[in-house]
């Protein structure tokens, strides 16, 4: 399977690469020089062009997109209802871009469309990295915090817990991120259970591509 990644940083890309392999149970053929967005809402801005490029100019099967939820509303079960669309939920927004961009595509390179795989890390990728190591960190804890107005942690705190500094160098960030991801590579169940934003990515990736 040929997979392209769209993420916000080289560290995110390195983590995604490992997670995609772990979900598929075999090394995926990841296209080199992953696509990059400069944070939200730049992901939304570049995504249609990336989808079109992959569909018409490459034989890539799957595009994996991840972003941080930051302070936006978290995607919940209620958002999965047919025809439902939350205008501020990033999962809903990214899925809508896939839908709208590729709905009139002709068949190209033998496939109807590039497979959509979307994950949203709540509130940031570092929460996924801490999953299973820090029991306070979960999507549910963040949602409860949003509802009560008392967030259990900040994004900066999560980053510090992983990197032990507020200003990690890129190699240090990648090294720490991959060390934490190793735990998930061996067993994805905890991450899948505690972070529905990751479970959605898993489900998308495991669903059969549309040929």
């Amino acid at each position, binding site marked *: 399977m040929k997979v392209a990644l769209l993420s916000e*940083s080289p560290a995110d890309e390195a983590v995604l690469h490992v997670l995609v392999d772990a979900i598929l149970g075999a090394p995926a053929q990841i296209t080199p020089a992953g696509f990059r967005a*400069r*944070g939200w809402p*730049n992901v939304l801005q570049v995504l249609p062009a990336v989808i079109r490029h992959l569909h018409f100019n490459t034989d890539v099967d799957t595009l994996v997109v991840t972003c941080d939820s930051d*302070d936006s509303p978290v995607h919940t079960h209620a958002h999965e209802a047919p025809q439902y669309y939350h205008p501020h939920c990033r999962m809903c927004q990214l899925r809508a871009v896939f839908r709208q961009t590729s709905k009139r595509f002709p068949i190209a390179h033998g496939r109807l469309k590039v497979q959509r795989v979307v994950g949203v890390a709540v509130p940031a990728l570092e929460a996924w990295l801490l999953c299973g190591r820090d029991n306070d960190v979960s999507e549910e804890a963040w949602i409860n915090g949003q509802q009560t107005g008392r967030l259990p942690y900040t994004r900066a705190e999560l980053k510090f817990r992983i990197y032990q500094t507020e200003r990690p*160098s*890129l190699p240090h960030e990648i090294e720490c991120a991959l060390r934490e991801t190793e735990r998930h590579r061996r067993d994805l169940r905890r991450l899948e259970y505690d972070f529905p934003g990751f479970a959605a990515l898993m489900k998308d990736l495991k669903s059969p591509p549309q040929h």
Partner: protein
Amino acid sequence: MLPLAEASAVTRDGGPEITIAFDAPHAGVTARLGCVSDVVCDLLRVESPSPAEWYEVKARLGTMRSYAFDHEAMAASALTTAGAGLASNGANLPAVLAARQRNAPAEFARLEAELVRLLPEFTGILLKEDYGGRVSLALRIGSSEAPVTADNLSQGVFYLLGILVLSFDPAPPAVVCIEEIDRGIHPRMLREVRDALYRLSYPVSFGETRAPVQVIATTHSPYMLDQFRDHPEEVVITQKLRHEARFERLSDRVDLPELLREGTLGDMWFSGVLGGVPEER
């Protein structure tokens, strides 16, 4: 140090003033730079617990260095004896690298390793001394016998090398100023440039044990600005209004979190919402 005006030169009272505070162990010293007239602002007033303490601060400030790199000057060979400190345009780059290799081989090796990590097409730095007492720079490429000589290297390679020479300096100046820090660098590599500056300013975060360096860098790149999304307190937007310049620390914008929900920091700056855009007729 610049020649400074005496209090007797003051022709107007009031006006803009810059107050400069210092970290420990000189937290008791305050320097205020004010104006002697409408267009000349070089009046320095100092408050210090003792003259000796001010002289100590002054000596440290004397190590301040300002850089506006010139790739053509950096590509030229340099006198081997001129390697004490990087010239403001980087003209003696080969001599500085040669001196570093000779006097601080461990630091040179770290610098070289960083360059090779950032530009993996290269495998090392070559410094060649000729009989005229000059040293020239080349970069090894792959396992090829023939290195890429300085006149064939891109502008960005020189600017990056200049930044790395400063970043891996075992005894850096107290204050380093760099013009247009993003120049010649691919936007995807600006994170690495920011990290090189952080290595100077936050040495502990990078495993260094030396004192932190105050870095003042300018940029007009929205992509560079994006690198400071998590630390807006480190960004000062300069707004030029005819003959005046105003400085606004980004973290003073109370609506910043809201703005960042609408777009990236760079996009917001380019749009004009954050100020700091040129005047238009």
